[in-house]
């Protein structure tokens, strides 16, 4: 019983962080997008990384 309670708390904390920190995720993935991808609608949640090169 106590074990389940801890599990629920942990999952709850992860969900809370996921919702609360979504804007941070958005900053990070926007930094990886091309300009066209940033301004497209509907927005893309998982940007492709094929255009990223190390030059």
């Amino acid at each position, binding site marked *: 019983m106590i074990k389940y309670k801890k599990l629920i708390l*942990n999952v709850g904390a992860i969900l809370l962080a996921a919702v609360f920190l979504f804007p*941070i995720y*958005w900053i990070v993935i926007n930094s990886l997008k091309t300009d066209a991808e940033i301004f497209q*609608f509907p*927005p893309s949640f998982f940007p492709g990384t094929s255009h990223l090169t190390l030059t």
Partner: protein
Amino acid sequence: MKKKNLTGYFYSAPAIIFMMLLVGYPIIYNILLSLQQSDIMSFNSGEMIFNNFDNYKQVFSDPLFATALRQTLFFTFFCILFQFAFGLLFALFFNLEFKLAKPIRGLILVSWMIPLTVTGMLFKFMLSPSIGVINYMLVAIGFIKEPIGWLVKENLALWSIIFTNTWVGIPFNMILLTTSMSTIPKELYESASIDGATGFTKLVKITLPLIKPAIMSMLMLGLIYTFKVFDLIFVMTGGGPVNATEVLSTVSYRLSFSLFNFGQGAAVANILFGMLLIVSIGYLIMLDKEEL
């Protein structure tokens, strides 16, 4: 005896000089500026004339000032309310004992650490009616039918900024509350449990009274930070639409740097300063009484 006194002055001299130069001088200069006729004309001639509180009279008779004052109070009240309520809930949640409590508590602090200008730009993007992700998600879950221009509607713009500021303020409140909660000895809760207290009773009778000093100082800090908010509003709406998000700091900026009426801008800034000073002194007096 006299020599001893001198040594004391010598030790405190750097701090006093520092404060006088970097804090005292700007404040006094600002007060002098607010009493003078200071605009482009007086810059041209190089003379500044004391004009018998004309700046203050004009500012008080300006309808924009009244609007800004009302909106500042509105903004501050709701920001503090939401920040405190959610901060307390988060603090209580992360004060429970489970493995991820501390890592995730630390992670949530990130939203407080990023610069306010970045936050403003980010939320401006996310709230945009054409490409904003918040509109997209709200439409997707069926909460609204079509995208809303959160920052361009007069009745929604201030609420959107309150939302953003709350997002920034929650972790700050949370961390101050959790640190003071963790200093409460566990025995208190144990003996309360033996006496048959429920969770809510424990919260009201043990937790809240014991973290009261932290709550007071946190509300005070929050009040000062929120009352003089500038960067968030300047970046997100710039005071628009139709002055709907104009607050005292943006009015002061506008008077000084787009109308070049430095005297009136300084007058508004001084009014803002005076209000915060009164609140701070009130807080210090209250703190003194608590200690005694």
